């Protein structure tokens, strides 16, 4: 019995070693705050993008962010794709026409710009990385195509397990919105390098991106509030779509697959029960008897 108890004690001890010890090894990363959770129309098993929000977000990207950030993986035709902002094909063509892209070399071998077509991808604001750095105090504005999936924050135990069930996976969007709205006065003790801004959510707090948004900066025609927070949420939703353009199709198909599998599992379960009934054992089966001809023998 005492041995049993000591094993128990050992279990508890190892458990403690594994889960309690880290308490005193806490991360000491300064003043970086955890992004607040936002409500997103695209979260959860039936999540969908809000078309109007994506269109507004695109407007914010176009009028503000595109001055510095590229969107390499998105073509103008994507703006008319199902499950996206769903501009009409004509609208997408008009938008494309407002951009200039380099044409293929002409007969004289010169490269001249032409109006973009829907098949073209969004042009980059800087010809190369160094040009981008030179214009931004040494920091390159990263491509935003998959940005909404490329950032996260730690959820910690037990949340990281609960997230599997609740399907919470919007850390990226929460972070982008927080970043865009997280500019603040620097705390007195903080040494802010020249050309940087203080941001509550950016790792290290000193960011080379000047606050891109301010109230009233972009004109909204659908009556949505023209506030920094609203801009931030809209452009984040747009960036979630650029990062995960098949999100709606994925969740829709997922639901169908889940229903199919559930029904299939139910049918198999009852079939299995029925089949196994045929070979149920009865107490008399244990009585010794002569082996039947051809009976199974151990190897």
């Amino acid at each position, binding site marked *: 019995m005492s041995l*049993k108890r000591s094993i128990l004690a050992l279990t508890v001890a190892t458990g403690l070693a594994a889960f309690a010890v880290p308490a005193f090894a806490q*991360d000491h990363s300064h003043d970086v705050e955890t992004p607040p959770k936002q409500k997103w129309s695209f979260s959860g098993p039936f999540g969908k993008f809000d078309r109007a929000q994506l269109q507004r977000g695109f407007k914010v990207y176009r009028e503000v962010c595109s001055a510095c950030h590229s969107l390499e993986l998105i073509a103008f035709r994507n703006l008319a794709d199902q499950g996206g902002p769903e501009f009409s094909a004509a609208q997408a063509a008009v938008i494309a026409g407002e951009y200039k892209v380099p044409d293929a070399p002409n007969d004289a071998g010169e490269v001249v710009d032409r109006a973009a077509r829907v098949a073209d991808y969004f042009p980059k604001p800087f010809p190369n990385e160094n040009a981008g750095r030179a214009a931004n105090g040494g920091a390159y504005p990263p491509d935003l195509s998959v940005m909404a999936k490329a950032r996260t924050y730690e959820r910690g135990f037990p949340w990281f397990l609960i997230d599997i069930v609740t399907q919470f996976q919007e850390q990226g969007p929460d972070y982008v919105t927080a970043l865009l709205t997280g500019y603040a006065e620097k705390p007195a003790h903080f040494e802010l390098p020249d050309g940087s801004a203080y941001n509550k959510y950016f790792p290290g707090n000193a960011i080379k991106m000047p606050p891109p948004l301010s109230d009233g900066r972009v004109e909204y025609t659908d009556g949505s509030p023209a506030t920094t927070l609203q801009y931030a949420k809209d452009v984040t939703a747009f960036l979630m779509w650029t990062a995960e353009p098949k999100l709606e199709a994925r969740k829709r198909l997922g639901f169908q697959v889940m229903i199919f599998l559930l029904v299939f599992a139910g049918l198999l379960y009852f079939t*299995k029960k029925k089949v196994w009934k045929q070979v149920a054992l009865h107490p008399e089966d244990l009585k010794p008897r002569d082996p039947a001809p051809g009976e199974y023998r151990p190897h």
Partner: protein
Amino acid sequence: MSGHQTYQPRSPFMKWMERRLPIAGLVYSSFIVYPTPRNLNYWWTFGGILSFMLAAQIVTGVILAMHYTPHADMAFKSVEMIMRDVNYGWLLRYAHSNGASMFFIAVYIHMFRGMYYGSYKEPREVLWILGVILYLLMMATGFLGYTLPWGQMSFWGATVITNFFSAFPGIGESLVTLLWGGYSVGNPTLNRFYSLHYLLPFVIAGVVVLHIWALHVVGQNNPAGIEPKTDRDVVRFTPYATIKDAFFMICFSLVFAWFVFYTPNYLGHADNYIPANPAVTPTHIVPEWYYLPFYAILRAIPDKLMGVLALFGSIIILAFLPWLDTSPVRSARYRPLFRQFFWVFVIVCLGLGWLGSKPAEGGYVIASRILTIYYFAHFLIILPILGWVEKTKPLPNSIAESVLHDGVPVGASAPAPAKV
């Protein structure tokens, strides 16, 4: 339901065929009338699930390979384009990346099942060792595959892991240069990793054939851990095992589908959506979750070479399990002490996994050291000694009896729990 029936071809074609290549007979004896212990529980369905996952990885992988570009400047973008422009490309990619994780969940359950019920004991040692080889091959395949999207974690994970090999005295440096195809991880590395990632699954498939061959020579173990003696202890593989496997495979697919359709990036790293950049090191370089316990062991040891040896040792030691466990009784059902140590061991492995995801500093390192010592002690001290000192419970006379009497042997009367 009598045991080994032989296949009797009926149609003239099958008769003709059977005299030349008795493949129908092989299938018949291996997957139709093959006798399986009647008391198998659902933990025994994971072998079938693993075969299914291997097939799923090969099918999705071969199609991904048709669209993927193994070049350092294009790999990241080609994976993104698969997700955007290939019909159902997002499904292929997410099924493949989550499929790898599901494959590992299944293999871990399968291995712990084997440990709990003593499936590695005589006469199943070779079967077990083939399993350990399969596990090693899977680890290699998963690691190589994770480098292919060429994101930050791909690149830095590959850099860190390949660097282990430099710890070997003398040959280390040349070994790493050979792995890299140069003096740092770069395009040649990606090319050779891609080639090997395509190759290894088929090596795995080959070893699976050996694994199943060995299984069919010695027969399946079962929760009672005793061999079938008569007809009443077994049932035919089809329909009894097939339907049970099918049912649980679908249940497993529900979990698989949950990840693929609802939380496809949960098991990955956000950093891998940043294109590889040799000039920027991520703050925490963390391998895929399935390597975390071993990563914790590696970092628990201050000396690089010793750490690498401990890492490999922690896997190789599994191959010696049949001889380290000295108890003649297989199933933990009849081993009251072992059963508790088994669960402690499971908790230790989970704890190591959690520690592997934490930075190697302060209390985390101390905890990793304690658990690493326990990990090895489990195999090298606890298992040998348990076999000698443990008072096991009486075994049932037959599998049929264990089924009817819920594991209590007839004549053992009132089941007074064996005092320890």
